[in-house]
């Protein structure tokens, strides 16, 4: 789990192009959207692509992301349970 969380942080930084940020800067429990990291709806779509591409998880609509992308930790838990690759 720990590994997955670290892996995810790196991937998020990479895919969202969070320049100058390191995995250590992201609190695994902090909200990704709104306060916290301050991501928006397009970032959510990018994360949906990430989920599909790297973990084989297909989300049918953007709303499903809301729950899953609460924090890096929640995301990692969801991936662990649903990943197909």
């Amino acid at each position, binding site marked *: 789990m720990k590994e997955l969380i670290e892996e995810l942080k790196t991937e998020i930084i990479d895919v*969202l192009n*969070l*320049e100058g940020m390191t995995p250590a800067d992201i609190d695994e429990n902090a909200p990704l959207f709104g306060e916290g990291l301050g991501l*928006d709806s397009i970032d959510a779509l*990018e994360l*949906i*692509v990430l989920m599909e*591409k790297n973990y084989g998880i297909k989300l049918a609509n953007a709303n499903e992301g809301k729950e899953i992308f609460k924090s890096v930790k929640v995301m990692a838990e969801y991936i662990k349970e649903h990943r197909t690759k």
Partner: protein
Amino acid sequence: MDNIVITGTGIISSLGAGKEETLEKLRTGQRGIGPIRHIQTKHRDLPSGEVEYSDEQLKELIRYQEESIITRTSLLGRVALKEALEEARLDGTEGLHIAFISGNTVGGMEKSEQFYYDFLHNNSRNEYIAMHDCGACTDIMAKQFGGHFDLITTISTACSSAANAIILGANLIKEGRVDIAVVGGTECLSKFHINGFNTLMILDKEPCRPFDADRHGLNLGEGAAYLVMETEATARKRNIRPICKLAGYGNTCDAYHQTATSPNGEGAYLAMCQALKSSGLRPEDIDYINAHGTGTGNNDECEGIAMMRVFGDRMPPVSSTKSYTGHTTSAAGGVESVISILALTHGFIPANLGYQTPIEGHNFKPVDHVIENVTLKHVLTNSFGFGGNDSSCIFSALDTETPAPMQASEAGQCYIQSAAHVSIQQPIGDDWFHNPVMPAQAYSESIEPDYSKYFAPMAARRMGRLLKRALATAVEALGNHPVPDAIITGTGLGCIANTEKFLTAMIDNQEEFLQPTFFMQSTHNTIGSQVAQHLKCHGYNCTYSHRGTSFDSSLLDACLQMRAGAIGSALVGGHDEMTPAYFEMLGKIGYWKSGDVSPDALRRADSPGSLSGSCSLNMLLTDHSDADTLCRIAGMDMLYQPSDEELRSAADRILHQAGLTVKDLDAVVTGLSGDRDNDAVYRTFLQQYCPETPVVWYKHLFGESFCASAFGVYAGAVCLHKKLIPSHLLYNTSEEISNPKHILVHNHFQNKDHSLILLTL
């Protein structure tokens, strides 16, 4: 000033070709939405509003017998254009000034996506390379009219493109620049668009249900529609019966988010208010709203709220006809204007198909079935685009009272207050003026400034380099001045680097795992709307994408509105970038020189091609001057395929209006670039018009790009401001010129589109 009237309309969409088929489907409530037929995509199951005619069938339909190849976007456009011109009985023999303004987003993408690797790796499809950009599509369509237009340009504000073409056309008529404007938009479905919208997860897998609580997104469509506009007086003179009036219009920017509408629909609200204000009508005068109504969760909710803010509890009947046609993106403003006019003239209200349940918080229900036998006097149609480019137009029946549009005041002046650039020269400042870098090869990358000065890294996370350049130069050019009244952008290709990323990923990954960020930036108005978002500028916002006169078109729009007193300031920009792949492709069709690109080699102009340069330049225009002002724009014009004589007399006219003659000119700034054919055009003009006048060039420093002419205007302005033309800018003499006062800037693209801009102190 007379009313502006519509005298011809033409339309093609998934409802059919021509008004007759369209009308029948509209009145019988038949959708034109079904599975994709022609495009070979993985997503064929997505319901779409594809035009049923294949390319070959469209060619037969308009008897397209020209040898030259043509893109589907242009073909669709020509079908609609032909119908509109025929109805307005225009055949080019009128001796009137006619503009053609077309909206378009992805240009020839439907061919580029098929042939991309051919472009790169072999030479079998090279002829399509030059047809990729939006302006090329308009150019191909203009042939329909045998080249009788005398001003053409292309607007690319995504889904509001065609509506903005209507607005520019109206402004050109009001200004007296043209007698007639043929306006609208065209767009064909492409794999690129389908996949792009798919990454945003806003495509409904069922036929769309605008304004329904259970809506799940939009269906893409394709189509084209054009309107012929002129004044009542012109129509009377031509003995043609008008169809209806264009009573008012508004263009504003939501300045909120690249793809989302602000919660209270601010931009939409402002656009509708502006349209009402300019028409002198009250909200209760509107008898029907043809809403933008895409069917996405965000748009419909916020558009509804914006309409409620305008109309309160007296909401007129509302429907979104995208439920019939799908979202025809760039063409939508035209398609829906023609549909609105059909409703107005035939006395019916088209249905909002698929509607069942109201959206929570909306106080209205859209019209869920076709209503016949109604009298419509005033119809409002909304067109909103990505990036919050929101426009509204009002069409009125002929027998209604609407105040005549305001005569242009001619009072406004237009000054270039400041400018900033990113290019292959030292960025932002005017280092280049004293210490120019002389490029040694045909491909150079721009020198990037330190962006952290202009915006936070978090804000820049999704910006490609062109967006960063545009934003930095905007912030720099604006300096301490207040937020401008307008942001007007020129870009020939938009953010081509990210467009390319999306396109290659789409091809390589077989339409999977595509990133929305790259798609968003492919829409050319991303640049202008990103700037508006950053500056929180809700004012007029428009993007021109017309090849080598993209920047010139922006400048013309700004000057028109400023002279008319409609705006007091504008940020006008020209932005284009180059990528190695695109450089290679354009190289294949003769854009670049191989070997020596020193000024001497370029002066010889003995071979095709020039050197490539990226361009990001923003200038602030104001209607008043101060000590820092660079110069005044004393006059400008754009011309399409002028004869040598017409070009000369246009220059005379501009000088004359400023009280000058050719002898007063201290220099002519030209786009001489070493390209044999293009340079010959400049030389002819110079020889015939002002053989004695010193010639300034700039492309040997900034390179060639679709927006390179921005550097011409900029260089002229800096010279006037610094009271010096340095020798490195002079083409035919090495002696610097001091105290220049009057400079004429001439730019042309392939001898089709010309612009003349007079700068004075």
